[in-house]
């Protein structure tokens, strides 16, 4: 329970042999790099949790992935799939140590089907590379994340989300046609046709409540029916059900893009304009920044010279004729909401800046992000509520409208991670921001590890049930990216476990000893046998303390992360205020 690697040295050697020595590392300096995602976690959290992988492998083929998974399941080694680690929800955190499977060497473009308008790629290809290659063929994908220069296709499929193009074409879920997935037992399936393989896991109702680490997971009793295409099941499943090795995506012809920028004097005017624009036109990408965002950009000399500080970027895609009509309507609705349509140079500049939302980090020097989907209809209310709630914080919000009439609202809280305590306490902001969104009818943006308590509302009861059943049947030991999607327990670090053990072992005899000294009438009356008045009794009590210490460690290691975050949040909020005042 205390610590110790999950992978024994012989197993490391075998894994290196399977994947190839050049693509394997268990060296300490590498493990640090592969054990975190983009989020700058408060250092204290890193000290507290046991989140360091034992080894990293970069597989080069589906067959190797399959052999690795078989081996890991057999040897009870947790496996954590990883793209480029650009997501920030803890999806790649090795909660129970184990093997990180970095997919970036599986980065080929396997085929482009111009008839069906699809492209098949290795899961580890970077979006930027794919876009470049497609562009050479006069093609493109219908949606890509703003992290396109850095994130992998498989990573976005597994994390889920919306991005550029999603206002018109939907998020990544809508783009995936088929996946090649290696299930935890090493079976390779194509999700568009191998539904039968999954269906077999859903038969019967033999669910037994699972002890141990699965204690906090859900149990369901009904049968599920699935059709042959189970692609949807694997999208945004954060690698908890298997490793995605190939992705087939929809593609579209590369057409004209026309970015337009409008500025407004208030959030109210801007949100009304957004509603009008999305009702009357079909932007490819409809994005906004708040006045605070603009101010921060201005502080860095990066803000465009616009009349107002609330900025909308609407990019249209289509034929020249289509574009002309959209542009006209855009002008009309901007004017109607007292906005100004800015120059073409500004529009072009803002469009080119779409990949760089993090420039304002210079003001931090740290940024704590948080993201939530909010219905566009409630955006104004949401922004006001956030404004009210975070009076003492410095933050900026941007958002992009999706094809479902939602806004993916992304907040950037300025902070300084070098101020360790205050940064730790500031964590409450990310959680509160999501909460406000949920209260305004929204839903979580992505699940990963930190949002696992929101799985039920994110996936919906039915889908979560199916996912759970598949997980239990294919991965009963919970080794496939543990702690993701299904809220897992805290796995505390060796140091922290030792601290608990030490505290309990020493604390119990000390308290009893002091009680014997200070209030002998009480101890003698009720617990005379527990007062350490002789050396042998002291030893006996230390022994008891040790046993209780081990029990305390067991208990502490079973507390779900979500529970800790929920309970800790009011304290964080309070301490942060005190710290900053």
């Amino acid at each position, binding site marked *: 329970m205390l610590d110790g690697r999950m992978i024994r040295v012989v197993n490391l050697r075998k894994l290196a042999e399977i994947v190839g020595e050049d693509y394997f590392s268990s060296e300490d*300096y590498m493990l640090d790099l592969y054990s975190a995602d983009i989020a700058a976690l408060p250092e204290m959290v890193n000290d507290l949790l046991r989140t360091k992988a034992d080894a990293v492998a970069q597989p080069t083929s589906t067959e190797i992935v399959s052999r690795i998974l078989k081996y890991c399941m057999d040897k009870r080694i947790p496996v954590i799939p990883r793209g*480029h680690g650009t997501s920030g929800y803890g999806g790649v955190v090795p909660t129970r140590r184990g093997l990180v499977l970095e997919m970036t060497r599986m980065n080929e473009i396997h085929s482009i089907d111009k008839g069906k308008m699809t492209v098949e790629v290795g899961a580890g290809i970077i979006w930027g590379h794919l876009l470049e290659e497609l562009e050479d063929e006069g093609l493109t994908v219908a949606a890509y994340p703003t992290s396109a220069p850095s994130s992998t296709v498989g990573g976005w499929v597994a994390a889920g989300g919306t991005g550029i193009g999603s206002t018109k074409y939907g998020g990544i879920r809508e783009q995936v046609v088929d996946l090649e997935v290696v299930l935890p037992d090493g079976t390779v399936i194509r999700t568009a046709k191998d539904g039968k393989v999954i269906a077999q896991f859903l038969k019967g109702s033999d669910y037994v409540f699972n002890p141990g680490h699965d204690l906090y997971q859900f149990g369901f009793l009904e049968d599920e029916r699935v059709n042959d295409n189970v692609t949807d099941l694997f999208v945004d499943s954060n690698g908890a059900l298997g490793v995605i090795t190939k992705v087939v995506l929809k593609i579209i012809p590369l057409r004209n893009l026309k970015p337009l920028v409008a500025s407004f004097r208030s959030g109210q005017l801007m949100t009304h304009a957004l509603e009008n624009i999305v009702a009357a036109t079909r932007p490819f990408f409809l994005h906004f920044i708040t006045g605070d965002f603009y101010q921060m950009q201005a502080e860095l000399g990066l803000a465009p010279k616009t009349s107002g500080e609330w900025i909308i970027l609407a990019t249209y895609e289509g034929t020249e004729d289509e574009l002309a009509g959209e542009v006209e309507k855009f002008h009309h609705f901007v004017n109607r909401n007292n906005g100004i349509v800015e120059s073409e140079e500004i529009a072009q500049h803002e469009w080119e800046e779409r990949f760089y939302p993090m420039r304002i980090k210079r003001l931090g020097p740290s940024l704590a992000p948080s993201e939530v989907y909010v219905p566009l209809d409630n955006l104004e209310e949401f922004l006001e509520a956030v404004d009210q709630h975070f009076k003492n914080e410095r933050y900026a919000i941007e958002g992009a409208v999706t094809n479902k009439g939602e806004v993916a609202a992304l907040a950037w809280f300025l902070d300084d991670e070098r101020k360790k305590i205050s940064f730790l306490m500031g964590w409450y902001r990310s959680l509160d921001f999501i909460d406000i969104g949920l209260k305004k009818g929204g839903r979580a943006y992505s699940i990963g590890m930190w949002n696992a308590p929101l799985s039920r509302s994110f996936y919906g009861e039915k889908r979560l049930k199916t996912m759970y059943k598949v997980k239990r049947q294919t991965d009963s030991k919970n080794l496939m990216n543990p702690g993701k999607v299904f809220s897992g327990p805290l796995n505390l670090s060796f140091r922290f476990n030792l601290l608990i053990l030490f505290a309990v072992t020493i604390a119990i005899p000390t308290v009893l000893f002091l009680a014997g000294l200070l209030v002998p009438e009480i101890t003698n009356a009720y617990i005379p046998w527990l007062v350490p008045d002789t050396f042998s009794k002291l030893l006996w009590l230390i022994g008891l303390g040790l046993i209780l210490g081990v029990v305390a460690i067991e208990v502490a290691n079973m507390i779900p992360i979500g529970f800790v975050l929920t309970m800790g949040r009011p304290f964080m909020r309070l301490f942060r205020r005190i710290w900053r005042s």
Partner: protein
Amino acid sequence: MRRLFTKNFDFDPDKIVMCSNCSTCRWTCTSYEEWGSEAMFAGGRLRMLRAYVEKNLPIDEHFVEAIYSCSVCEQCVERCPIKVPYGEIVEDLRKRLVEIGKGPYGKLGAMGDRVFHEHNPYGGEAKERANWITPDLKISDDSNIGYFVGCTASYRRPEIGVATVRMLNHFGIEPQILGTDEYCCCSPLIRTGQIVMPIFKKQEDGSKKKVGTLDVKSIINHNIEEFKSRGVDQIIYSCSGCFRTTTLDWPKFYREKGGILPFSTQHLSQFLAVKLKKGEMKWKNGYNERVTYHDPCHLGRHVGVFEEPREVIKSIPGIDLVEMDRNRYESKCCGAGGGLKGGFGENATNIASRRIEQALEVGATTLISSCVFCKLNFLDAVKRDGHDIKIVNIEDLFSDLMELG
């Protein structure tokens, strides 16, 4: 701010904390492309540095290797949304590693030794530095225009020095050169952190005896004073590395002595572009080939010279200049810089080979560059991998087409 760092590795954390870990700089990183590991791109290196610094980890060979396996090409800085000054950070870091005796990596330290003893990193004798000069070259001792030849042309690719002087002579300029008084520009030393370094000599009994201290500042100041005392107020460069170092690094070292450089610097491609603009240049022959131009990092991204070389190339009759996908600010590095060629020779050649493939992809039969170091590395790749492409520098072309050879 309180520093939690080891005494011997006190690196300013304010610089590292700017990096957001976003990986935007990863996909075009020269070293990531070669090694494919999280430790081998700017964001990964900064994260690793942070882990070493904050956790007080002992500096081991992995760390040193990762820090030196970067060509300091600064594609990452170009990409970085936050403009983390990675180039400065990594050079500063290398300097710190050398100071605490952990750097430079591998055999790179030999360069410092050689510069200390012979004023060049190749180990050629100092007195032979001017041996490349052929009798036909006209060199004066009173012109206000100087030519900084550099170590690579002096010791490895003499044809570059010859072609450059012939080119200047063609325009009626008889430049001053420092000859054996020219010392290394110190580019390889600054890039690899060898700014101040004790120099040892092996004794007969195997022990090492300190024989002096390499001090980049004094070498640079020697060069500056030499040019100044000879009345040179404009220096021409054929090597982009020397040009970058003189333009961006020398002033820092000279300023410490309280001065600003007493001369201006000009790369030969800029010199030719001016001649072209003034109508003082007419090509004798044409070049009927499809060519592409490789922007050397030191000339392009670092100093901002992109268009002049292209203007010169385009003016050659019959030439068909095509661009590679990655050009100008986004140009891909040849892999030679930042000590990569000295420290990781094979990898540097792999990188050059991939750049050549990009040239071949656009149908170029000649790859033109304007840096001696790029040319050296490309030629090594051609030799090893047998690419069917000619590698030339602008001055080579000039010399050939003007029949100066």
